[in-house]
């Protein structure tokens, strides 16, 4: 468990879907954006591997908040989008 509540994190600006068949649960609109860890949600087998019937290691899952203004040019001022993100998609800023 690398992150704590309140930590600022960056979602990886990575596009595995451009390289071959994948199953990714990190929405495109978050890639390369900055968020804030709300809380740890537990650890679960990685769906990216489960989807292809491969052995799936458990990964930490976090609830991460993103300011709408950070995500969209027309984003609402104080509104947020909160998303479950797996640890391997998050970096320190």
């Amino acid at each position: 468990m690398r992150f704590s509540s309140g930590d600022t994190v960056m979602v990886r600006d990575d596009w595995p879907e451009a390289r071959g068949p994948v199953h990714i649960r990190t929405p495109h609109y978050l890639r390369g954006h900055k968020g804030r860890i709300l809380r740890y949600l537990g650890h679960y087998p990685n769906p990216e591997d489960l989807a292809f019937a491969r052995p799936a290691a458990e990964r930490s899952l976090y609830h991460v908040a993103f300011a709408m203004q950070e995500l969209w040019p027309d984003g609402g001022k104080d509104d947020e989008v909160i998303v479950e993100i797996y640890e391997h998609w998050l970096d320190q800023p």
Partner: protein
Amino acid sequence: MAHYTKRSPHDLGGVAKFMCEAVDIEPHALTAFDREVDALSGVLRAKQMMTVDEMRRGIEAIPEAEYHRLSYYRRWIRSVADNLLRKGIITEAELRTALEET
């Protein structure tokens, strides 16, 4: 945001071409087909013949135009067939024959 063109067709959050589309808020009861596909998928998952992740992958593999043309549960049944074939639970020959016979 040029890199957003790399998104998969199912990854719809904030996609510009849907931002002006009205939401059909009417209830739309499930059909017998819908309910049976839903139940069949659930039974296959309960028996561990398919996971929800595998089913999602199969849906996400549907080409973009088809993805939007097919109704929700038609996407599901296509994915179920795809997964059962991939895992060798049924063969293509068996499925073609069953399609002819039913």
